[in-house]
């Protein structure tokens, strides 16, 4: 079985993961430096600043969903740029390169319309970080989708991240592992797969995402159960 594969026949193997943050050594103190680094930084760093935050706990109402927007607001005190960057939803982009281009576009547009370049204080520079992911086997095997519905409340935050968020970088169709697995059952779980595809997970924490997944599976199988 190759790396990243979570299926074996028609069982689902639960994996878990841990993320490690690595400093790239690249820093930006003003908007022009941010733009320059965005043009050349490794795509993993862009991934980290959009998705790495999901593995950090957030509060019920996170102000911004990515680090670039948060720094624009709190480092540069540029609320207009923060709002424009904050609305970027990485799930709408085909890949990280397209996301990078849009980021650069937004920043350049702001540079064009600004009289002067915004600066942050020396101790509030933007630090470009990337992450490494360590994936490991929990040795928990789910025999059928109904059993997954029962097991979901016991899933760790790392497992939810791996199977639902990280999966989009690994699976051929850019979907999550649950849908990939359900597809093996043919037409049987089409509606469940549609429901999963419709789940908007970018603005929630992983803990909230887990709660939504539990509800989605529970509702689906409650509806399917014979009276």
């Amino acid at each position, binding site marked *: 079985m190759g*790396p990243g594969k979570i299926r074996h026949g028609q069982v689902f193997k639960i994996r878990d993961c841990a993320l490690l943050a690595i400093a790239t050594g690249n820093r930006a103190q003003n908007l022009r430096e941010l733009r320059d680094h965005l043009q050349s930084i490794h795509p993993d760093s862009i991934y980290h600043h959009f998705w790495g935050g999901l593995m950090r706990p957030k509060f019920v109402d996170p102000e911004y969903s990515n680090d670039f927007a948060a720094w624009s607001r709190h480092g540069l005190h540029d609320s207009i740029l923060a709002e424009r960057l904050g609305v970027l939803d990485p799930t709408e982009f085909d890949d990280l390169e397209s996301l990078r281009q849009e980021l650069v576009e937004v920043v350049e547009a702001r540079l064009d319309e600004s009289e002067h370049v915004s600066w942050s204080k020396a101790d509030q520079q933007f630090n470009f970080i990337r992450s490494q992911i360590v994936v490991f086997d929990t040795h928990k095997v789910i025999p059928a989708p109904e059993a997954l519905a029962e097991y979901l409340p016991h899933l*760790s935050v790392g497992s939810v991240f791996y199977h639902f968020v990280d999966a989009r970088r690994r699976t051929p169709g850019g979907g999550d592992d649950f849908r990939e697995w359900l597809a093996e059952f043919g037409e049987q779980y089409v509606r469940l797969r549609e429901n999963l595809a419709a789940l908007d997970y970018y603005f929630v924490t992983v803990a909230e995402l887990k709660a939504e997944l539990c509800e989605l599976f529970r509702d689906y199988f409650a509806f399917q159960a014979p009276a």
Partner: protein
Amino acid sequence: MKNLLDAYSAVAGDDVISHLRQLAVPLRGLRVVHINSTRSGGGVAEILERLVPLMRELGIDAVWEIIEGDGDFYVCTKNMHNALQGARVTISDEMLHAYEETNARNAEQHRSMLEEADVVFIHDPQPAFFLRHCPRRRGKWIWRCHIDIARPYRPIWKYLRGELAAYDASIFSLADFAQQLPHAMYLIPPSIDPLSEKNIDMSDAEISDVLQQLGVNPEEQIMLQVSRFDRFKDPMGVIQAYKLAKVFLPNLSLVLAGGGASDDPEGAIVLDEVRNAAGGDPRIHILDLPPDAHRAINALQRAAVVVLQKSIREGFGLTVTEAMWKGKAVIGGDTGGIRLQVVDHHTGFLVNTPEGAALRVRYLLHNRQKLADMGIKAREFVRENFLLTRHLREYLALILVLTHANGDRIELV
């Protein structure tokens, strides 16, 4: 100690311990060596005291050794420490010679163990030159920096950098502290030990007893700052904030608890200034505590109604973490690692002036529900991010990365 993991499970959660056990499976039997400069006193020793037994309980063959030197060595490393934190300190060639000699002698003593080890953690600059004395090393060597080196004094950093470049990886507490090195620079924040004397649960009766021993009336509404008497911690600003808030909160008391004044000439000067600024106010308690007054600090943090850490400059600020773990909202200076912990309006407030601190004290004491809610969030935030178990998880993940493969994905499946 057989049940250390179970004890942590009770405070950190079963899932956290289960996660650690799974991460440790591929690491069983690995020889991991930690080297630092002291077995007691200071944050590094406090962490290793628990971390090493926890690693052993997970099946890792972890050992902890220290570097031992004479007076010149410690003077040199103290100066080095200050220089890395930005002080313009000149270290003589004789001092550097003593430093390098001490490293050579200690490395020689532990050479076979170090060369055989799978992973070696060198903590801070004191034993940094061990690596050059272990030419047949077969494992991965990691330099763990616990110091704020955001703006080091360049000549000393340049001297150390030449040696550190040969390591396989380094670890910094915050991204701001990371310096340019030709290897992966991991970011792992420090942590507190929830089972240590400084953080373990205390009964109300115990808290009350300790406060009375310290001369503090447990019935007072305590506004607390725990820190060394150091200008960067802004104790004068805290007194000013107290005086501004006191006008509206007559039952308010201030406790400034710290140490370091006895062996630090500047600390003694700051302590005198603080006493003068207090001006004989009986509700201002200035406590110059010994370094091992862990239980006193624990009791004060638990008794406080609100905790301040109004630093102007701060490395990480573990006193903030300790207070948050005790369910306290923290009013912190908008600087360094405090920003990582005090999430404005969620776990406390970030402030820049004594006026700002006074305003937030008044606000919280008039909004008790908000104060309580922030305290609950603060404790959960620490549980998820800044307990020793998270620190251990990241060390395990790092060892896995370094011993198994390179690249951004390590799949142990």
